[in-house]
């Protein structure tokens, strides 16, 4: 197999020394790049290392090789955004592509007749109108923060809340109660004291009643909600009927709520939280790179594609700016020469292990 690859590569270079890039050799390069991607996709972890080195080598032979490789890799990465079967993007992409491809088949058969053209709609939806077609719960959410944003609000009762990164929540304040429902993301709450109306944060896995305090609730991606206490205390009641009793969480403590109830109470790093919410910085110590990228992606406008397994061995201790995630990525690229951060489109960033240059 290796010999085959070598002979194909040298054939390509001899065609180039002929001085003219013909259409055939462009197609050949495209086919080679495609072959490489297929090989890498099929290879087991043992073969991956060597294959990547060989692939890098092939790319360095000619800028056209590198360009072809970039195009295929970029295309495959675009698709991987929709790959996670747990996320709504997956079903969305599946249905959308099916509909679009059917439409193109139909078009091929009809070969653009008068009637077909007449049915084509002309308008594309600008962003504002897009929101009207948006998922119900998100639309209904009273407040949303999209990536890279820190939104602070003062509620009608005088409480302050700050939303971090991609967050959506509902607010219901009336004469009897004050309820904040966290749908997704992360919120910092500073509750105004009011003995007549309890302040409650509802989450999927339980409710958190403030006893006049400051705390943070984070709807995590792994089916858990995390509560971090900054000041005073709260009463946490798990939603699960099988779970044990409620608990009071005090300042400096942290707890996770899940379908199974409450986790044991752990200690909170208050300095880290201050950095996060005041300076908009992420203080990490001994996190894996995969964990760091997961956190950054909540603040990054687009999509950061990376292979968690690949980057698990890299440990990061750093202070990263959360309000400028591109800067954070650049910092990471600088500090870790073993990784490569590539911006494919304004939206798509790919982070992967760099291969040693020759």
């Amino acid at each position, binding site marked *: 197999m290796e010999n085959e690859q070598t002979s194909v590569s040298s054939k390509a270079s001899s065609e180039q020394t002929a001085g003219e890039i013909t259409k055939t050799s462009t197609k050949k390069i495209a086919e080679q790049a495609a072959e490489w991607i297929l090989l890498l996709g099929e290879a087991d972890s043992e073969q991956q290392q060597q294959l990547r080195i060989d692939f890098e080598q092939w790319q360095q032979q000619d800028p056209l090789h590198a360009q072809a490789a970039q195009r295929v890799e970029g295309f495959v990465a675009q698709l991987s955004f929709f790959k996670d079967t747990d996320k*709504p993007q997956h079903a969305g*992409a599946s249905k959308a592509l099916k509909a679009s491809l059917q*439409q193109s088949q139909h078009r091929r058969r009809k070969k653009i007749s008068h009637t077909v053209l007449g049915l084509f709609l002309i308008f594309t939806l600008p962003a504002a109108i*897009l929101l009207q077609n948006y*998922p119900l719960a998100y639309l209904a959410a009273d407040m949303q923060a999209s990536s890279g944003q820190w939104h602070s609000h003062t509620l009608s009762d005088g409480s302050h809340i700050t939303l971090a990164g991609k967050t959506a929540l509902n607010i219901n304040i009336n004469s009897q109660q004050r309820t904040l429902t966290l749908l997704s993301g992360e919120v910092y709450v500073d509750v105004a004291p009011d003995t007549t109306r309890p302040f409650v944060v509802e989450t999927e896995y339980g409710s958190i009643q403030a006893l006049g305090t400051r705390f943070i609730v984070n709807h995590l991606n792994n089916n858990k909600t995390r509560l971090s206490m900054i000041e005073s205390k709260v009463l946490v009641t798990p939603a699960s009927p099988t779970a044990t009793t409620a608990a009071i969480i005090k300042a400096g403590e942290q707890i996770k709520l899940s379908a199974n109830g409450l986790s044991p109470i752990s200690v909170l790093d208050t300095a880290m939280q201050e950095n996060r919410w005041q300076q908009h910085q992420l203080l990490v110590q001994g996190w894996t790179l995969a964990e760091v990228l997961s956190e950054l992606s909540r603040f990054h406008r687009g*999509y950061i594609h990376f292979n968690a397994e690949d980057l698990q061995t890299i440990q990061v201790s750093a202070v990263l700016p959360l309000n400028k995630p591109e800067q954070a990525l650049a910092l990471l690229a600088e500090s870790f020469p073993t990784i490569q951060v590539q911006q494919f489109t304004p939206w*798509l960033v790919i982070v992967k292990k760099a291969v040693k240059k020759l």
Partner: protein
Amino acid sequence: MSTEQTFFRHDNIDTLYSQHNRWLIGWLAKKVGCPHNAADLAQDTFVRIIKSRNALLGVREPRAYLITTAKRLMIDKARRRTLETAYLNELMVAAETLESYPSPEQTLQAIEALQHISQVLERVPAKAQQVFLLVYLEGKTQTATAEQLGITTRTVRSHLLKVLVSCQQHIDF
């Protein structure tokens, strides 16, 4: 030399517009049945030509060129509309459950990515489209895909290669 070329091109588009815009609007109005939309479409067609890199190079029949560009434009808009509707409908269904879902920005960008993916897939036969999506969207292995469709793994690879080659083709606009 390059300044000359720029003026040359500029001059050509102005001529194209002054000589054929009215005609194009008329032609489009017959096709889409609405003069207002036709005017918008004609406008977009010229914008697309101006934006494109190879605009007007070696074009002998300006009207045929305009029609081809307008048709491509309408196809792209229809594709966009189809993708958007299907994608958003699915997101709405998924939103019933309390999960974290993408922001409007992310959704817009996802739809643009799907446009590109669809354009690439439309260039290959239906079978290749199916195989490719099973492997790269559904995450099935090549062997599992071959089994499911009753074909050899060799055929699966050949289909995948078609798409991976097609995606490198430069889309003009």
